[in-house]
């Protein structure tokens, strides 16, 4: 899903100014100062219990905000029912504690698990829905949960009045006072925020951002979109469940009125006010939401009115939020990776393989398309196509507009499934596989209408290709295991090499949206190369390039071929086809009409007719 381009551009404009080098010292000092303030706040002499409680609820909203930020901020999924997961956490704690007297803190993992499991169950069937449709489903889920709590199924939830008499937690000493609760919630937030920052800087966090920027491109470049979306929901829900657990024990009661649609809207606003995907921003958003009503307490009747107005003004004057997420430079990523402990020296072969497997003189073609057919509502886009791509050659696919070339590409890369026929790659069947699995098997692509990730840096764009060559998951990324650090370092250097290859090394830390058009094409090629494909599939790579740029492109393609990457390209520029291709396939109206070397194709009457029209016309 494309979150508004212009919003992303704005975030981009902000971070391209501050990109490069180490994180600004001022920023780091501000973080240290705010952490110190948070720790000292309840001890200040003029702070009474009332304000310590306000600080506690700020913590609850901060935690909920962080949990929604994963779903909404990192992945860009419209979740307007997030309170449901919070409610599940709170009710699981309330029910198990009052019925079986299990201690609150022992229920903390249960609440997280229950909320996460619930999220998995309810979002798995709907996770493919886009934008507003998913939004309305989450609203529905929120309402279903709230109404179920009110309806008191099996006498479990206590109906509209909820459940009373929940114990307070016991962590060595019983946690009762406002201050103790305050420190409990903020200690939990500290741990969680630490883990989330590490996730942001990992393969997982980047995969989330690729999905937010362009779901189709992410999937086509090897990201298992469904998996990462579900994982975001499950993790976000689990964190909300933790917030629910603490909230229930602080209140000593739960009732459905704490989990309304209004509450979900507030969480949504926290993330947007703070800045999509920004952890400090989300905290600031939570602060604004908690402190605002306190400041306007004297005007109790009008305060929500003012609040609505404030949301509106904020979106007019600062739509990217208080603290938009800054993208980090390659240098920062590397510095973070090195950390304090140096990694043990690694063997060279630990590095993710940079060049594809050496080509072997095999007789069978690399890619075989046999009788592939696809029609859209009776209109046949590709009919009964046979095509081979031989290893170590550049094969060009040409034909007039609407001939079905891009559709054939989409069949090969798994975006569409053929209705008939079979496509195999390196001897194994790939038709029917999902696009990200096909990338893993060794086919990477570019798009006709460029689909880069605009608000990420060029380096991050290229790292997307590397995604399918890595394996570090959530646990490895949060714990920053040696294997993960090694993998990450290898990915970074491999991505660097790919950028260098296409002449974009200088631009690594620039935002992709700031690149001129021609360079964006090269960035797409670098991104595809980073997947270490055996076959690279290029959809009109020269469109929009001038003659000089096209000549450079031809050189690049030939050098890739020399490195053992086979190439299949759709092209309208016949001079380029002439320069590079070993074999040409001509399509018209969904059918293959000719095939052979360019010099033969040129003389083929059917091809001439397809391009120029027959004489009778």
């Amino acid at each position: 899903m494309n979150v508004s381009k212009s919003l992303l551009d704005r975030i981009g404009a902000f971070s391209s100014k501050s990109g490069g080098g180490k994180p600004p010292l001022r920023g780091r000092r501000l973080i240290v100062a705010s952490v110190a303030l948070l720790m000292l706040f309840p001890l200040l002499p003029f702070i009474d219990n009332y304000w310590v409680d306000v600080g506690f609820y700020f913590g609850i909203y901060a935690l909920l905000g962080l949990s929604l930020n994963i779903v909404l901020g990192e992945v860009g999924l419209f979740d307007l029912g997030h309170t449901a997961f919070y409610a599940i956490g709170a009710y699981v704690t309330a029910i198990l504690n009052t019925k079986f007297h299990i201690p609150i803190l022992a229920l903390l993992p249960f609440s997280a698990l229950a909320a996460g499991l619930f999220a998995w169950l309810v979002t798995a069937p709907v996770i493919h829905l886009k934008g507003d449709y998913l939004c309305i489903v989450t609203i529905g889920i929120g309402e279903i949960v709230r109404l179920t709590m009110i309806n008191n199924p099996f006498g479990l939830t206590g109906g509209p009045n909820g459940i009373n008499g929940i114990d307070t937690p016991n962590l060595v000493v019983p946690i009762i006072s406002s201050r103790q609760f305050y420190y409990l919630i903020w200690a939990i937030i500290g741990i969680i925020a630490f883990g989330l920052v590490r996730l942001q800087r990992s393969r997982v966090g980047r995969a989330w951002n690729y999905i937010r920027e362009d779901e189709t491109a992410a999937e086509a470049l090897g990201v298992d979109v469904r998996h990462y979306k579900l994982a975001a929901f499950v993790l976000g829900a689990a964190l909300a469940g933790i917030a629910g657990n603490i909230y229930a024990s602080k209140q000593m009661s739960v009732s459905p009125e704490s989990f309304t649609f209004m509450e979900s809207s507030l969480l949504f606003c926290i993330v947007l006010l703070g800045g999509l995907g920004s952890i400090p921003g989300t905290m600031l958003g939570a602060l604004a939401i908690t402190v605002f009503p306190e400041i306007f307490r004297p005007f109790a009747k009008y305060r929500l009115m003012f609040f609505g107005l404030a949301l509106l003004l904020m979106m007019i004057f600062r739509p990217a939020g208080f603290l938009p997420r800054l993208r980090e430079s390659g240098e920062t990523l590397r510095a973070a990776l090195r950390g304090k402990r140096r990694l043990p020296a690694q063997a060279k072969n630990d590095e993710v393989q940079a060049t594809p497997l050496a080509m072997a003189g095999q007789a069978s073609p690399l890619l075989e398309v046999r009788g592939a057919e696809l029609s859209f509502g009776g209109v046949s886009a590709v009919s009964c196509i046979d095509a081979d791509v031989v290893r170590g050659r550049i094969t060009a696919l040409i034909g007039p507009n609407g001939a079905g070339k891009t559709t054939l590409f989409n069949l090969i890369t798994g975006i569409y499934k053929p209705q008939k026929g079979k496509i195999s790659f390196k001897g194994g069947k790939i038709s029917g596989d999902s696009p990200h699995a096909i990338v893993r098997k060794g086919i990477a692509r570019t798009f006709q209408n460029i689909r880069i990730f605009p608000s990420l840096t060029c380096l991050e764009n290229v790292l997307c290709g590397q995604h399918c060559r890595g394996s570090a998951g959530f646990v490895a990324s949060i714990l920053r295991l040696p294997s993960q650090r090694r993998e990450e370092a290898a990915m970074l250097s491999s991505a660097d090499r790919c950028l260098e290859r296409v002449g974009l090394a200088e631009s690594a830390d620039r935002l992709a949206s700031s690149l001129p058009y021609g360079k964006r094409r090269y960035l797409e090629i670098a991104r595809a190369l980073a997947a270490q494909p055996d076959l690279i599939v290029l959809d009109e790579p020269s469109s929009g390039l001038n003659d000089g740029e096209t000549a450079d492109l031809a050189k690049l393609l030939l050098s890739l071929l020399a490195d053992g990457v086979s190439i299949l390209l759709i092209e309208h520029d016949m001079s380029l086809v002439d320069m590079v291709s070993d074999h040409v396939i001509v399509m018209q109206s969904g059918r293959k009409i000719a095939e052979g070397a360019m010099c033969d194709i040129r003389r083929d009457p059917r091809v001439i007719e397809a391009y120029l029209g027959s004489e009778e016309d």
Partner: protein
Amino acid sequence: MSTFIEQLVNGLTVGSFYALVALGYSMVYGVMKLINFAHGDLFAFGAYLGYTILTSAAGKVTASIGIWGGMAFTAGIVAICVAAAGVLVERVAYRPVYPSGRLSLVVSALGVAIFIQNSIMAIWGSRPRAFPASVVPSLRFSLLGIPVTALQITILGISFALMFAIWMIVEKSTFGAAIRASALDRETATLLGIDVRKVIFFVFALGPGLGGVAGLMNGLYYRAISFNMGWNYGLKAFTATILGGIGNIPGAMIGGLLLGIVESLLSGYVSGAWKDVFVFLLLIAILIFRPTGILGEKTAEKV
């Protein structure tokens, strides 16, 4: 059997409120690709405005032009005022935010919704208000053995007339073609010389205008109104919009009527308390099995 038909008539009445509100959602969504969360609260605003007119000035007006005349007069004023409010919302809250993208628009819409809801509370108070019996026609009679009120018949008549009018405008008139074109592709419509601003003005006047009248009729029908009724009706009407196929005008009507009937039958035969749970489950099921709604058309994403 007669309870069944009673439930059906009741469901149709409620469904016609949903349908009128859903029309507004659908038209705005079509052109702006925005869930206008303030729409439900404009519906509530219509109800309160009607209440004020009928209980204050209307004492005199109704006395002079009769109970039906008073109602028609009130409906006219409500439609105009709520339409004006709708246009104002677009100018103040959506137009300046539009370039910043859809997420910002959602927050802006939520902000306006909160603002309107709490303005209603600040003006009319947080306790529900009741329409006095004197302004509501109490005529009831039996139609083929089923007891119906004159009000029900009127509501159904007006709703269907309004829906038919909108349908004719959107499907048959030149301006309707402009609306549909803007909904399909705003940029291309602009390039073809369609004044999209005028289209937006129109949908933001017409949608809330209809919603306001629906709010008034809802108040007259149930007699009680509360400041936060907009959330619930808005949500239901939006569900109806999705049910019928978002951005699709006849779909919104069918979705609204169907939702009203389903709800009514569920509360009559299954359980009133679980009615809304079933409604939302139905919504989710429809989105899983037919994501484009009953009348929506499948659109393939171009890769």
